[in-house]
């Protein structure tokens, strides 16, 4: 029996035609941006604390 690969969640098939959504890409970009900002803030905070107290 042929195994199904993970279906592409961004492809919607309707009677009118096939629609490609960007939702996965948008989520990926947003999550990446949030994580990068979080890391930058954490590094800045640590640098500020260390340079101000030691």
């Amino acid at each position: 029996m042929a195994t199904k690969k993970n279906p592409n969640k961004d492809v919607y098939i309707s009677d009118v035609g096939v629609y490609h959504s960007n939702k996965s890409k948008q989520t990926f970009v947003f999550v990446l941006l949030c994580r990068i900002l979080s890391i930058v803030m954490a590094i800045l905070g640590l640098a500020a604390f260390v340079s101000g107290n030691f």
Partner: protein
Amino acid sequence: MSDFKKRTYEVIEVSSIGDASSRAYDVLMTTTVIVGMIPLTLKADNKYTFWIEILTTIIFLIDYIARIYTADYKMGYKSVKAYIAYLFTPLAIFDFLSLVPAIYLFTPVSSTIGLFRLFRIFRVLKLVRYSKTMVVIANVLRKVKKQLMAVLILITLYIFVSAMLIFQLEPDLFTNFFDALYWATISITTIGYGDISPTTSVGRFITMISALVGVAVIALPTGIITAAYMAEISRKKSKYEL
């Protein structure tokens, strides 16, 4: 547009299971709040605190605007009144106050403007949204606020009465009535710094009574909050068991 607004609301509110965007946003906001407090641990600003202030202001401003934009979802009804009503909710006021420290970035530093930097402390209240424990504590305090207010009024009254008594009995000990209030507060809470201590027998007698009454009165809020917290935990436990 309605889908975009709904999605924005889902992202900025506390994340549900499986919502990666909302979870990443919660982590970013929590990190920003904690890092935004670091300048309060320093005696003087440095180059890093300047960039911390810029970034935290931008992030908090985007968050504030997004929350106002989705206020109709938050308040549960669609009308202009929902947006206005949201602006006066406690969390919205804290969000606005947490933006105030940024004022010093745009004006020359003076002692008055410097005071606005203390408003950074309001940023910690933003954590109430992102911590389930803090939500529980906030609910507990909301439920017992009448009892706590009654105890607070009793304590305030007692501090004033003690201060007035000692101010009349030992006028040489105090520069003004505020010093007497300070003494009464330190005595009733049994901290007793010893920077102001009575010299006459009557003054010492008042201090002894203050300390004994203080032990009982100061314990009241602790008992009220503990009982309410235990009741809340039992309620949550029985809710999950059902």
